[in-house]
């Protein structure tokens, strides 16, 4: 099947992430497996220095973010040709603990096709090149979380 026939969903949204709707959009009649990653606002962090989080405030450079999400999907397809559907969705705005913030889902005919690795690559790559930022706010104040990756020109 040619990749232009395959469903790719990418979006920056302000409303709740609807897993069922997204999953339906990336499920084909040949699909037998979906690997889904969701990031969630963590209210208590224990790794490293322990801290409490009241909420996260996300913003995005929306048109560029959606173009870069499309690029991540293209990179996934180039590495895992068995992947059928791909959904990459980031929710922005003020998000409180226990709320899903991001969803990466990949579907394939079977689970042993690299579909888990494809979804893992998707979230890792989103955190490198998709222009989205979060401010972490606690009772003590807030700070912008800064990533570590510096994309090359044209990347």
């Amino acid at each position, binding site marked *: 099947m040619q990749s232009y026939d395959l469903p790719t969903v990418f979006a920056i949204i302000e409303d709740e992430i609807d897993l069922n709707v997204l999953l339906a959009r990336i499920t084909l009649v040949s699909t037998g497996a979906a690997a889904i990653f969701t*990031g969630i606002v963590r209210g208590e962090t224990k790794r490293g220095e322990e801290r409490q989080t009241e909420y996260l405030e*996300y*913003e*995005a*450079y929306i*048109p*560029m*973010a959606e*173009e870069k999400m499309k690029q991540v999907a293209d990179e996934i397809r180039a590495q895992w040709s068995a992947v059928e559907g791909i959904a990459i969705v*980031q929710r922005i705005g003020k998000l409180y603990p226990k709320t899903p*913030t*991001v969803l990466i889902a990949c579907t394939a005919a079977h689970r042993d096709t690299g579909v888990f690795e494809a979804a893992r690559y998707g*979230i890792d790559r*989103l*955190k*490198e*090149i*998709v*222009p*989205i*930022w*979060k*401010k972490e706010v606690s009772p003590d104040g807030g700070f*912008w*979380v*800064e*990533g*570590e*990756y*510096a*994309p*090359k*020109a*044209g*990347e």
Partner: protein
Amino acid sequence: MNRVKLLFFAALRERMGTRTLDLDLPADLTIRGLKDKFLDEYPEMSESMKSVLVAVNREYASDETLIPLNAEIGLFPPVSGG
């Protein structure tokens, strides 16, 4: 002259106190030249500019990138989505 639109995000937006800034640049300026000119006018941004990422017309650029006419130039910290 080349009129470009700068877009600021996250910590840079807060520090600038604005989302956008229109700027007249000489023709054939590189991103390095833009950074120098910007820091001359906004020296208080020097700390924020140390780790800045630059996108020209929504594509990542380097210091050597030549700025096209009427470009949209995003200035922002390393990304932290997810």
